[in-house]
């Protein structure tokens, strides 16, 4: 399949910045795909989006849109990509309908109205065509911006932090709606976000950026289950690292390598709270509870292992362990776990002894 957008070794280094904001970035976007650019603030996500839109020009590398090289000769107005800015950028002096029609500049006059009304109906705002932007709620404003981006039926739209200005209460709903709208319109999208749960929920593929470098690109499951760098593991959430010695002993029990593991002095294994079993009444405790959070269905604990490392674990809500109590922690995971040497993944290990779940 031909990618709609292709970035090849793109670098962006403005004069005032001490180092490049985007460093030789390569990625592809395929038709009807939702690609999420994920990363902490300042990682170059928004800049990447602006490079694709043509609002900035790369210092090096090549951006291809629908097979055509998009450089200085293809200004933003010729790229035919929809864009939804973080502040929505609705024209404050135009009604909803006028805002959407403004994007249909290239459409013949007679069809403009129909197409605009269709786009407005598509995002569920039928009946609000004559409202001014300031008369709409944040969620409605965002949908107008999406309708405006989708109205000319572009093959791709770009969304910059589309959910950041919305209340958490409606964010989940809007996210699902956006997926439905994009699927119905058969439009590919690149969405910028710094929220990894959002990325996991909405993306077909996630591209993880840090300091302008692409750390990993893949399905959400890949990124969460098989992080290739320590940063990726940490950023995808709830990651703890437990050190592994030369005999493959860890504070949580012994592990065996799966396939080859490149041995290193500071080897550690990635554990998430669901990989850890908790034993409350044990003769051989190996950790101390130092913090407890009640999260409704379960308790979430921070525990300090005897070697000083901290890990997180959970118990069901009927088991409440007091802070300061010593408990036993062991591996619960039966699946291979990722090992890291310094910053980079170097293989997998599985636990020898599991199932001491209390």
């Amino acid at each position: 399949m031909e990618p709609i957008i292709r970035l090849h070794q793109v670098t962006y280094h403005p004069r005032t910045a001490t180092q490049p904001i985007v460093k030789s970035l390569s990625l592809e976007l395929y038709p009807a795909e939702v690609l999420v650019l994920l990363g902490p603030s300042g990682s170059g996500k928004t800049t990447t989006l602006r490079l694709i839109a043509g609002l900035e020009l790369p210092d090096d590398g090549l951006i291809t849109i629908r097979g055509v090289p998009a450089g200085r000769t293809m200004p933003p107005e010729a790229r035919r990509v929809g864009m939804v800015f973080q502040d929505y950028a609705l024209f404050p002096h135009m009604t909803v309908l006028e805002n959407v029609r403004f994007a249909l500049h290239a459409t013949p006059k007679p069809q403009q109205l129909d197409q605009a009304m269709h786009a407005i109906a598509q995002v569920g705002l039928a009946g609000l065509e004559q409202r001014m932007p300031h008369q709409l709620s944040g969620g409605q404003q965002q949908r107008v911006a999406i309708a405006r981006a989708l109205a000319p039926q572009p093959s791709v739209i770009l969304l910059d932090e589309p959910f950041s200005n919305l209340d958490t209460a409606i964010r989940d709903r809007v996210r699902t709606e956006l997926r439905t709208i994009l699927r119905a319109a058969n439009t590919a999208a690149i969405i910028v976000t710094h929220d990894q749960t959002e990325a996991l929920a909405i993306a077909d593929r996630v591209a993880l950026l840090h300091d302008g470098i692409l750390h990993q690109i893949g399905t959400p499951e890949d990124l969460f289950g098989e992080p290739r760098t320590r940063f990726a593991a940490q950023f995808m959430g709830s990651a703890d690292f437990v050190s592994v010695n030369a005999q493959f002993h860890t504070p949580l029990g012994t592990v065996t390598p799966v396939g080859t593991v490149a041995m290193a002095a500071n080897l550690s294994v990635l554990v998430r709270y669901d990989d850890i079993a908790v034993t409350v009444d044990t003769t051989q405790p190996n950790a101390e509870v130092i913090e407890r959070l009640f999260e409704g269905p379960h308790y979430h604990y921070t525990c300090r292992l005897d070697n000083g490392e901290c890990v997180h674990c959970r118990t069901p809500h009927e088991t409440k362990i007091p802070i300061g109590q010593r408990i036993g922690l062991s591996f619960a995971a039966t699946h291979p776990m990722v090992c890291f040497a310094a910053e980079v993944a170097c293989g997998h290990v599985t636990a020898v002894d599991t199932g001491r779940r209390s």
Partner: protein
Amino acid sequence: MRAASVRTTPYHAPRRAVWLLTLLIAGLAATPIVLVLVRGLLTPYTQELPPWPFLLRLLQNTSLFALGTAGITGIIGIGQALLIEQVPMRWRRLWRVVAVLPLAMPPYVLAMTVGSVARPRGSLERWLVEQHWTEWGTLPFGMFYGLAGSIVLLALCLSPYVFLPVSAALRQTSGHLDEQARLCGVPWYTRWWHVTVPMLTPSAFGGMVLVFIYALGEYGLPSLLRLPTLSTAIFSRYIGDIDQSGTALLSLPLVCAALGLLHWSNRLGGQAPLHHGPTWRPRPEREGSRRMQFLAHATLLGLSVCALLVPLGVLGAWVLQPAPYAAATQVHWLVLASGAVRTFLVVGAVASLTTMIALAPALVLRTGGFWGAVLARIGQAGSAMPGIVVALGVVFVVSDWVPWLRGSLLPLILAYIIRSAPQTIQSSDAAFMPIPHVYREAARGMGASSARVFWRIMMPLARPGVLAGWALIALGLLKELPATLLLRPVGFDTLAVHIWMPASEGMYHAAALPALLLLLGAVLPLSQILVHDMRRDRRVEE
């Protein structure tokens, strides 16, 4: 009236003293104008008044002068703002400062200095003739006198009135709007017409209305440039007219024009664009093409040469090379120095006093409900009146009701207050408005009295804006001429009078030193305005 719809809770309701001060200002502002209106309407048209054809010409001159000045100022101010804010270029901050500097330049100083260069047989024509490039009188230097010259010169002086609000509006508009329009695929002219222009129209319009009213009442510049307008006619009648009824009749059209304009602009200017969400600006490192940058720099430089460098240069030359008649006309330096001290003291005191008492209407405007808004608007009526009308109104008040005040300083101070109160109300209101209600509610919740809330919460937050308002009116009063000439006690010569007296008789050299002193005195308030503007700017960019 949007102000009236603001939620009023017991926490915010103004106190009685605040209401009284508001009433005082509203009364001060309304009385002279009503008196001018009444006397103008009651004056019969008699033989002693100028003949009809002459009156019609005055009307025509005045309206063309005011309209033309508003238009040209709009072009200059909007053009400067667009060049400075939208062309990506270096020295942007410097140009922002330079574009505001003409605020300090009195129009009559600009007229006499640029005049010495550009008038017929001025230094420019003499130089051209000496180079044998032209003969005396072949080039149209005569256009300098009359309508064309007056309009252009006043517009150069008043361009900050349009530049400041338009540039602020451009800076506060999210840069994403323009980019969004580009991504919609529309050509640049559609983008410009449908996105940029609507964004800056309300602010530009507001500025141009101010300029229009300023031009209606401007006296010094048209009389130096030999353009008879209603204002100059009012003056010459005032000198020779004992009962002053003729002057009231002449100022009737000015009052009507200003009132009509105020009514009209309230309806039109109310549709300010509503901005919401964070403001985003393009990265400063992006630069436009070299040609575009060069054109922008050249235009801005040309404007500042005309409005600033030429006047300063000419003033400097006059001071350094005294005219042959200098010995006869030169005012003793002690007289001049005392005039300068007197000017700065009075202007500083009146500006401070006005700023203090105008805090009351500024508070009442948004928290006093319907009547608060009405009273505060009446207090602003002085801004809609040409300066000469206000001065005349105060003359009538004094001569009709308190004749024993004639000859004292009080009438002049009253006129100054009425002239500058609207500006202060406006800038204080703009300083108070962004302070969230919750701050006051939180402070009251902690048991603070309303006075304590005002002095400890509101004032510290509003101080930069209030100080900028002070600076703006101080600048206005420094160069104030018509009210000073009409109302000053004998011997009370401000710097403006020291400039005007010799200048009106063509002895420009004698006016140079006081003019330089005046510009020097304007540095302090001007820097206040610039600091405020830059602080706001930094906030937007952060």
